[in-house]
């Protein structure tokens, strides 16, 4: 909780000084992320200070991460029919969603990895809509990862829900480079988003992943009815996790889901959140993920890349489509942001 009184007209705080000035010294100069109260101050900045916040977040990204952009592609190995009730997700079997269950075969999986590698991407993430993997899925992952590693020059990541220690160890032994498991939202808001499992169960999986030597990828979705205070809470909870990568999604209100009635997050709100997350996590890979097309459009995507983002998912997502790959690659070229090379990721 902040004790500083904020002037809502300027976003400045009387007791501690202007939050962006504080962030410049604390985050940019010393590399120390903002506290929860400080992140909230950034999120409460008035609209006329958005450009300034983005510029500072960009400086922080350039200082602590460099100009390179990490490019990734993702694919859904198992779509739909999930037993969990994540309220944003069209793949839950508990909702009347138009998404029907489907499996991707090994040949198409390898082809998807090849197509992704051709874009210059260094990461390819295999995703399954499950609570956690069963033996059938673990075997498909084993075969699929081996085939990709044999044929494609790309790091393989997985996102298969909650894991047991044995499954963590087996994925690490397969050579899975990074594991994605999003906390999705602040701990205090999680029960409004998911009721079939807990935030703490997700946290436990992430700890096992880290201990097994895989990189940790953990982010969430902005715009699921959380307050600004909960958004600040989430940023700091992610920072405490110290993930290697944080994917930032923006809610896509999908038909049939409990969140179908929510509004698409507004662009300025999303951009300020990007800046705030960068100021909370100066050294983390912060990735543009799903929903940016609706929330930010083309111009907003560029603003995000100049406001703290240093990684991007190119191509399509799991059930939704992304911008044409060429458009994102042209954007990076225009912004003079080089794509991170594979040998820089290992």
């Amino acid at each position: 909780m902040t004790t500083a009184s904020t002037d809502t007209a300027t976003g400045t705080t009387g007791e501690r000084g202007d939050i962006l000035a504080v962030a410049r010294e604390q985050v940019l100069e010393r590399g120390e992320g903002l506290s929860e109260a400080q992140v909230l101050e950034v999120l409460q900045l008035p609209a006329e200070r958005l450009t300034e916040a983005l510029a500072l977040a960009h400086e922080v990204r350039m200082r602590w991460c460099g100009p390179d952009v990490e490019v990734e592609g993702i694919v859904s190995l198992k779509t739909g029919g999930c037993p969990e009730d994540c309220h944003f997700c069209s793949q839950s079997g508990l909702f009347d969603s138009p998404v029907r269950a489907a499996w991707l075969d090994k040949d198409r999986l390898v082809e998807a990895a090849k197509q992704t590698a051709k874009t210059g991407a260094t990461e390819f993430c295999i995703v399954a809509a499950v609570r956690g993997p069963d033996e059938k899925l673990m075997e498909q992952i084993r075969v699929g990862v081996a085939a990709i590693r044999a044929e494609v020059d790309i790091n393989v990541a997985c996102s298969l829900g909650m894991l047991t220690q044995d499954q963590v160890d087996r994925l690490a032994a397969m050579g899975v480079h990074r594991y994605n498991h999003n906390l999705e939202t602040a701990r205090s808001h999680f029960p409004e988003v998911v009721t079939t499992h807990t935030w703490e169960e997700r946290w436990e999986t992430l700890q096992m992943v880290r201990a097994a030597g895989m990189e940790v990828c953990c982010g969430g979705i902005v715009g699921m009815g959380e307050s600004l205070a909960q958004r600040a809470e989430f940023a700091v909870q992610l920072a405490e996790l110290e993930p290697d990568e944080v994917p930032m999604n923006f809610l896509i209100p999908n038909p049939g889901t409990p969140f179908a009635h929510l509004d698409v997050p507004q662009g300025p709100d999303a951009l300020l959140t990007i800046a705030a997350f960068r100021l909370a996590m100066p050294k983390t890979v912060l990735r543009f993920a799903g929903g940016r097309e609706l929330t930010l459009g083309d111009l907003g995507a560029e603003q995000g890349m100049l406001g703290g983002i240093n990684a991007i998912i190119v191509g399509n997502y799991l059930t939704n489509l992304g911008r044409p790959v060429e458009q994102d690659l042209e954007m990076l070229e225009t912004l003079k942001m080089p794509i991170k090379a594979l040998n820089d990721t290992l």
Partner: protein
Amino acid sequence: MFCSFCGGETASGDHERCRARLSLIDPPRYCAECARKMVVQVDPMGWTARCSRHGERTSAEAAQR
């Protein structure tokens, strides 16, 4: 004919929002000929959508139209 986003009849109702979603971020979910839910697979560069009655459509075919 039926809306590929919501499955409603295209002749009735307002499908402007559906068209916007289909043009930006959504593959077809309902068969335009019979409104059955299709089995859709999205991959990084495209999609396929299969209706049990009317067969498969692909993003490559859709782009040629």
